[in-house]
């Protein structure tokens, strides 16, 4: 975000600003209402459930149990299936898978975005449309198709067998889950980075060359710092849905690579334990928030806006 030094402001300007603010408030009010109904109130519910037990009495045991601080998990989680679950481990696994998927997406998307932005205008259009094309297909369908492809008897392994290669077991492995995330969320990494790159002022690159930068230096000194805004957006847009996904891990990870999204889904739908489900959601949300805040802090000096949060 841009930070202006506070210049002295005249009374007329103050008045004008106040008027502009009023207008802005008016225009954004429907969105605000939407936010209150569908974001703020549900959040309050989440917090309420997370800190109450089945009887509605205040407790912090839900959260403590999740973090492994409360040894007597039985008191917290009434249902038998949950007792043996190591929440800390599942949290870590989710974070880890999400991080790996995000890094893989970044490694693929950044060069793609860069080279596409260097192409002729009409080619850029075509490639960006191709990048977005999968997004027009239903997410569940895509994941299901991927599952079918990765199976031991799926198209990939069938092809391998035909070629005389051994069957590679892929489905229900961490590899499959991360592949699913990369496959599904890659466009969300490409688009913001491409958008920043394609708007980059080419004369800045010339200025850097003029001042003695070779290609490598032009990249590290100009292109990279100026594209940080897009990178931050992309990371946010890939990391957050990756960490909290449940469908991908269910279909591609089998039961063995359960992620926190799966646990939340099961807690709410199968166990119908709203209190624990809310507590898990809350902890996940806070963890994601911390990750994003840390990343924003690191990229703040370099980025030129374009980041999504904070």
């Amino acid at each position, binding site marked *: 975000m*841009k930070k*202006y*030094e506070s210049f002295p402001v005249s009374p007329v300007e103050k008045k004008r600003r106040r008027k502009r603010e009023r207008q802005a408030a008016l225009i954004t009010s429907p969105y605000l209402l939407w936010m209150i109904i569908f974001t703020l109130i549900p959040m309050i519910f989440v917090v309420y459930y997370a800190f109450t037990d089945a009887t509605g009495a205040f407790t912090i045991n839900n959260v403590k149990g999740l973090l492994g601080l409360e040894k007597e998990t039985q008191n917290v989680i009434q249902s038998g299936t949950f007792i043996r679950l190591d929440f800390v481990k599942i949290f870590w696994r989710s974070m880890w898978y999400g991080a790996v998927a995000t890094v893989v997406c970044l490694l693929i998307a950044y060069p793609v975005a860069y080279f596409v932005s260097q192409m002729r205008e009409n080619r850029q259009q075509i490639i960006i449309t191709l990048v977005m094309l999968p997004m027009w297909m239903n997410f569940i369908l895509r994941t299901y198709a991927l599952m079918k492809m990765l199976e031991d008897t799926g198209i990939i392994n069938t092809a391998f067998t035909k070629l005389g290669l051994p069957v590679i077991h892929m489905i229900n492995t961490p590899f499959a889950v991360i592949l699913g995330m990369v496959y599904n969320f890659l466009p969300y990494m490409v688009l913001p980075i491409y958008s920043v790159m394609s708007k980059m*002022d080419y*004369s*800045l690159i*010339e*200025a*850097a*060359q*003029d*001042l*003695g*930068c*070779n290609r490598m*230096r032009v990249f590290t*000194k*100009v292109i990279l*710092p*100026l594209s940080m805004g897009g990178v931050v957006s992309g990371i946010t847009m890939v990391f957050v849905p990756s960490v909290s996904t449940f469908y991908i891990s269910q279909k591609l990870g089998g039961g063995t690579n359960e992620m926190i999204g799966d646990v939340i889904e099961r807690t709410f739908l199968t166990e119908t334990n709203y209190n624990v489900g809310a507590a898990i959601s809350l902890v996940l949300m806070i963890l994601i928030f911390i990750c994003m805040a840390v990343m924003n802090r690191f990229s703040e000096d*370099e*980025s*030129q806006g374009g980041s999504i949060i904070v």
Partner: protein
Amino acid sequence: MSETRNIIELKNIVVNYDGEPVLKGINLDIRDKEFVTLLGPSGCGKTTTLRIIGGFAEPDEGDIFFDGQRINDLPAYKRQVNTVFQRYALFPNLNVYDNIAFGLRINNVPKEEIPGRVSTALDFVDLAGYQKRKVHQLSGGQQQRVAIARAVINYPRVLLLDEPLGALDLKLRKEMQIELKKMQQQLNITFVYVTHDQEEALTMSDTVIVMDKGTIQQIGSPQDIYNEPKNAFVARFIGESNIVHGVMLADRLVSFMGREYECVDGGFEPNEPVDVVVRPEDIKIRQKNEGIMTGVVETVTFKGVHYEMIVNVSGVKWMIHSTKAAEVDAVIGMEITPEDIHIMKKSEYSEVKEVPFAENGGETEFEEV
């Protein structure tokens, strides 16, 4: 310090964009430590010429030499040239200090040397104390000055400046002209300066290169360019001028406006059609029957230093600049010395190509610049 050595030579440079010729065979020698200005109207190819020298554009034909070495294939970052870009091209993610220090850091200048040099550069462009400012917190003129500081701080052999004072107000512009000229002499390096402001070109340059439509029209000292314009384009573009059709009868004898006049030029074919140029300030107002022409004053406009008068001489309008105003409708005599009648060859810029005076009545150009 030999003044005759060429630091940059352009040999028959041709550039086409989308099949359109932008530079049509530029031949140009720039001497070391010279202040050279490319002057011409918008779109004539000044920036393109500069980009060829800087290494940001490749010529379709022709060669570029730097210090006698052909540098067509030398990438921009290896050239001992720095550029002040027309649109500044400051790094938006860096503050003023880091923008200016950029080149020093890239070129591994010792760390302890950097702060001193940056503050000298900032002083030079009159922006002391702006180190911490972000680029977007600067006015257009301030950004332009940061761009100048960012380039000069590297002590390049050649500094390319693309309309570096374009965004400044008149007063600051004049100050910076003097400063830049002084700096060029102090640094003792070559400046290749682009402007479309003829006055700026005349005040600052050792050599002026007048361009139009991708072609060099004239190369010369400011005095040459002003006093001896090669064709009607140069005469019109540099200062204001009266241009009429004439015929060279013999050496030092020209006929225009239906009469013969003595002049100082020669070397034309007998009866060769020519353009005759007279600068408005070279015409002296005399009594009715004195001087070489007589006309009726149509308008008188006060221009500050002088009055500008439009005088009708048998149907042809002449412009006169004088500190003394004549009366509107007065009949005056006009005196022009033979030295002030300048003869130019006909060119594509001539208003009248072949038609003799008697049929056409001649044409006069008034060019407000």
